[in-house]
């Protein structure tokens, strides 16, 4: 890579601002720009919808049949010929920027995503705007970072801030956006990252609300706390939601795999074919078209019977799978929420019919269902919980939400090991780090590697001869010394022997002979910390009790650490 001009962060002499603080200010700016982009994106989607399908929520049959198919053809050509990076939802593309492209997202990808997604979603394809918003925000952030010539580590991070801003503006949910980006895109928690992401999300939401108002995407009726006995129903919802998620994931991924195996020229037509099928379904059930916020609204207000809920849920799963598998640009967040709303509504209706005295308002089941499918499909459990809490502003639903989400997540994890974004990334030839796999891996700690000290701990007042006399043949070459008030140090057996040979010399006490103070480890420290500390001249480190640093609980050496790592080889990844 050519030498970069001096980063704006370094060159600009911010009065009383360090580089980190300047980066936080930049995060605010990125959030604002991401919001502006998302506002334009939402207007574009709605304008496309108005132009293509008309202003009625129930378009005419002719439009339903023609528009998704024709627009699908246009989108297919645009994606294949001009904007190949616009394909898909946008989450993996943002992760690729972080892990593969050093934070680089070409502006053409942003433009392509903007145009093709707004056409696709506006024409009725069963996809949502949130994931593209994430990528659009990330793309703008990447451009800003390149213009400002940020250093590589900051440039790599900037798209994540834009992603959080884009998602927060799209969803009007800053907390959920922050959690999703941290959970799924960045994959790690640190104070610096978290602060920047939060600032970007908050700035973005503020600006988006300035333009689009603070009204929620759908109107949430009042919901109240739940009888504990009803939690069983929400457990059932979790199980059913998990199964629905597995069905969707298998359908979408298998269809995608199959369609990818077809000749390349068919990819021009796949979005059109998906659009035609979705339009056909839409003739009978227009509720399955588009992102589906109106359907969620209708579900919340009890417009459907249980049969209709169930049919719509199945059809939404089918249509979203078709749109997704065909590579039509657009996201999965909104359709996932719709699927969840419909599954939740089904269970809610059945509960009300069978146990009328033990049935909360239907809206509660719809809301919990939304979170449930979010956890099952996208495997972002914390995001799903906080998103629903943000949407409702009602904490009383947290218990049923936790029950249902957890079960759905576990069912989905059991039957579909790899999350959908990871599978899709591999299908696209990218090996991106899987935040879920990282999450599921057990963290190795010092206690996994340490062993009991064989050699006695020497006292500083002992002479070298006395110390040597106490050492057995298997005590090792590096012996620990503990001096109250000073801490732990060590001495080599050779040095002791040399000092003992010159017994009559001054300063042959162990305390005088021992090496500099050793760093201390505790059993719960990550093993990574021990690996960093173990040095050639500190071959052995003490592992001490947290409440009493003079109490030795074990020792750890480089060999111990490496043996532990070798003993935990991860299993091969499944797809």
């Amino acid at each position: 890579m050519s030498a970069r001009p001096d980063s704006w962060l370094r060159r600009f002499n911010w009065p009383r601002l360090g580089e980190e603080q300047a980066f936080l200010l930049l995060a605010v700016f990125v959030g604002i720009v991401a919001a502006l982009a998302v506002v334009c994106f939402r207007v574009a989607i709605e304008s496309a919808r108005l132009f293509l399908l008309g202003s009625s929520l129930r378009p005419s049959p002719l439009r339903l049949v023609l528009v998704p198919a024709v627009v699908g053809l246009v989108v297919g050509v645009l994606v294949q010929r001009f904007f190949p990076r616009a394909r898909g939802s946008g989450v993996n593309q943002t992760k690729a920027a972080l892990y593969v492209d050093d934070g680089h997202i070409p502006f053409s990808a942003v433009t392509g995503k903007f145009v093709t997604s707004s056409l696709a979603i506006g024409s009725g394809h069963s996809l949502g705007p949130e994931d593209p918003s994430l990528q659009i925000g990330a793309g703008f952030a990447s451009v800003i970072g390149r213009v400002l010539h940020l250093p590589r580590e900051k440039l790599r991070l900037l798209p994540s801030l834009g992603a959080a801003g884009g998602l927060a503006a799209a969803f009007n949910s800053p907390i959920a956006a922050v959690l999703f980006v941290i959970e799924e895109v960045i994959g790690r928690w640190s104070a610096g990252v978290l602060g920047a992401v939060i600032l970007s999300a908050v700035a973005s939401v503020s600006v988006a609300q300035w333009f689009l108002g603070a009204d929620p995407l759908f109107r949430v009726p009042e919901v109240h706390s739940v009888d504990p006995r009803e939690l069983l129903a929400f457990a059932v919802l979790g199980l059913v939601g998990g199964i629905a998620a597995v069905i969707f994931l298998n359908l979408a991924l298998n269809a995608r795999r199959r369609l990818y195996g077809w000749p390349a020229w068919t990819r021009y037509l796949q979005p059109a074919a998906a659009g035609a099928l979705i339009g056909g379904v839409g003739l009978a059930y227009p509720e399955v078209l588009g992102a589906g916020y109106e359907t969620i609204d209708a579900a919340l207000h009890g417009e459907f019977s249980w049969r209709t809920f169930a049919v719509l849920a199945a059809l939404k799963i089918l249509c979203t799978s078709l749109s997704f598998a065909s590579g039509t640009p657009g996201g999965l967040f909104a359709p996932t929420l719709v699927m969840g709303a419909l599954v939740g509504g089904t269970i809610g209706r059945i509960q009300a019919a069978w146990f009328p005295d033990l049935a909360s308002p239907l809206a509660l089941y719809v809301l919990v269902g939304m979170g449930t499918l979010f956890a099952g499909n996208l495997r972002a459990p914390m995001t799903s919980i906080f998103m629903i809490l943000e949407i409702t502003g009602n904490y009383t639903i947290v218990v049923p939400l936790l029950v249902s989400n957890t079960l759905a997540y576990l069912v989905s994890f059991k039957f579909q090991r790899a999350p959908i974004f990871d599978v899709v990334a591999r299908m696209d030839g990218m090996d991106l780090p899987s935040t879920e796999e990282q999450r599921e891996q057990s963290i190795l700690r010092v206690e996994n590697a340490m062993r009991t000290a064989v050699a006695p701990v020497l006292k500083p007042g002992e002479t070298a001869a006395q110390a040597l006399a106490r050492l057995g043949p298997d005590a090792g070459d590096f012996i620990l010394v503990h001096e109250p008030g000073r801490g732990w140090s060590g001495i080599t057996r050779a040095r002791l022997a040399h000092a003992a040979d010159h017994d009559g010399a001054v300063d042959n006490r162990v305390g005088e002979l021992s090496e500099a103070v050793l760093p201390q480890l505790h059993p719960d420290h990550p093993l990574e910390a021990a690996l960093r500390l173990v040095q050639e001249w500190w071959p052995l480190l003490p592992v001490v009790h947290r409440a009493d640093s003079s109490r030795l609980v074990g020792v750890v050496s480089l060999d111990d650490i490496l043996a532990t790592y070798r003993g935990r080889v991860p299993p091969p990844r499944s797809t």
Partner: protein
Amino acid sequence: MLAGLAAGSIAFFVVTSTVAGAYRGHVEVLSKEWAARGEAALAVGQASEAVEAFENAQHYARGDGKTRMRLAEALVRAKRGEEARSHLMALWAKAPGEGRVNLELARLAAAEGRDEEAVRHYDAAIHGSWEAAADVSRRETRQELIALHLRRGALPQAEAHLIALAPDLPKDARVQTDLGLSFLHTGSPRRALAAFKAALASDPLFAQAAAGAGEASFRLGDHAAALRYLRAAALQLPDDPAITRTLAITDLVFRMDPYRPRLSAAGRARRVGLAWRTAIARLEACAASRQIVLSKDPRAPALPGAPPVWHAYRQLAPLGSQLSAEALRRDPERIDVVMDGVVAAARMTETCGPKEPADEALLLIGRQHEADEP
């Protein structure tokens, strides 16, 4: 570079403002258009079309409470109560004191049999805020609540609201008559009579008011006034069976009640005699319908297993010989003896076939006398 970025951002902001502003303006227009279509559909009774139109209007104006209220009303008309309730509860959560919202919620609850909830919302609507015609709205709401209380049998609550409502009602004959009938239903004949009199003051020929006044007077024991009102009502509505029957009973009571104050001895004797003859005739008719042979001779031995009618007749028949004014003056207690027998006979004969006005009249006289006794 920095300046370029800043300029670009400002330009982006301006473009976004323009685009968003244009979009907002357009959707406002769309919302109004769809709302107008909804109003037109509601006006011609096409509730389903109205719902669809208001849903479209709401989609383009999410925060608009008025449109949402119209959507809820359209849903009520389309008999989609659950959805209507959902929208109304959301509106109520934002403005719990809104009169219109509470009224619609009350109506939904009443239709679904949730009376306690309906009463709560009706009360909230009566005391809530109304955008226009607040007085009329509150009055009409109170009237609905009264009707609910009457249906539930909560008469004291209904009466309390009627009392509160009465001063606000116009002195229209029909309105006052309805008020009077409601008071009668709650068991307040005095207040009912006042309302009926107000109705008659507005329209002296209003037959329903006259009938109501007659009924109220009758319940108050003023049979003379009752007769007067009922005869006036009967003149207007000669074929009304309720008026005819009430008039007949009132007339019989008036002519047979010996306990009316300020009666002469002759008048009292006349009334006792008529009551006796009426009771005897009823017993004979009852016996004939059951093919029972009656005996007037008090000395005849009691037949084992004889029906109660036979015994009642045997006891009552001999009393008829001593009903002259002189006999009653000599033995005032005889009136009570005769009337007790007459009332006992009426209790028996009221179950003998359809209830006759004579039976009702005699029973009323008996009840009135029991009520008046210390």
